[in-house]
């Protein structure tokens, strides 16, 4: 450190001090830039992976719990048929996880809990899917409506616009797996509550189908509109008979 010695070093230090206002300002700007990039990396990539894995772990845990209960339960005297599936139990309190969603189109790792209520801090911002409390339940004639984030907070419904007609959406409950077939997308204003009606957008009509309605924000990274995905109930797989082959790679039960 030769430059520390003598007059040359003092001059250098004083020159540094004179530059320091601009220098410090520049360093603050660079720091702010790095902070912003770190935040974006976290928001758009890292946190979604972390939350997605958390949701997957939570789902696997819940599924194993149901599987354990089912193996000790008594034989059902009147087993459900695909035409008359069991109706899921009404969740006791808001925030309670009562179902899981599996969508092969969203990837093999998509395995996300559905909790009661659509509160942002209580359900949606945790990365879970929220059930509109006034809507029907899985297996019930009417409209089973859920909401989830499309960007950030684990972005469960990030690929909602990539669904294709006929894609299967599975809802897992304590009883087994409900299979829904995707039918169509709709775009509505944030106040478009008609999508939650027992027969969507048809007030007063008598429901005959079992509909699954998924709502999320649209366009990506905006809350100007809502994207709606409608699916119709197709069949039911009782827990005792195991999950359908299509989702055997996602649901790991009975090992």
């Amino acid at each position, binding site marked *: 450190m030769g430059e520390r010695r003598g007059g040359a070093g003092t001059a250098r230090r004083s020159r540094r001090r004179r530059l320091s206002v601009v220098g410090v300002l520049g360093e603050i700007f660079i720091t702010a830039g790095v902070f912003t990039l770190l*935040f974006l990396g976290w*928001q758009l990539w890292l946190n979604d992976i972390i939350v997605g894995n958390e949701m997957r772990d939570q789902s696997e845990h819940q599924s194993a719990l149901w599987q354990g209960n089912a193996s000790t339960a008594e034989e059902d005297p009147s087993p459900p048929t695909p035409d008359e599936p069991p109706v899921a139990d009404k969740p006791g309190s808001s925030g309670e996880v009562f179902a899981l969603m599996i969508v092969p189109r969203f990837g093999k790792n998509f395995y996300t809990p559905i909790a009661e209520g659509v509160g*942002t801090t209580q359900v*949606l911002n945790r990365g879970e899917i*929220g059930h509109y409390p006034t809507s029907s339940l899985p297996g019930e004639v009417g409209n089973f409506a859920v909401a989830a984030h*499309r960007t950030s*907070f684990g972005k469960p419904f990030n690929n909602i616009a990539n669904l294709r007609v006929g894609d299967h959406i599975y809802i897992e409950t304590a009883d087994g797996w409900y299979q829904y077939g995707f039918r169509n997308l709709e775009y509505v204003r944030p*106040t478009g*509550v008609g999508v939650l009606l027992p027969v969507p957008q048809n007030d007063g009509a008598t429901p005959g189908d079992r509909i699954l309605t998924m709502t999320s924000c649209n366009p990506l990274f*905006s809350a100007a509109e809502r994207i709606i995905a409608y699916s119709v109930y197709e069949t039911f797989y009782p827990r005792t008979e195991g999950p359908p082959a299509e989702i055997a790679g996602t649901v790991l039960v009975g090992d």
Partner: protein
Amino acid sequence: MYGALWRILPGPWWVRVLILAVVVAALLFVCVQWVFPALDLMIAPTDSTVES
């Protein structure tokens, strides 16, 4: 700012690097744990539900 910080830190260069690494790791942890989630709530669209 960072130059001054480097001069204030004691010890040989590798001790300073070690101290800075620990400080940076702590700052990153605070950001990921508390600062970023709070910022996210302010910035990200949190509305994915329909309501009247």
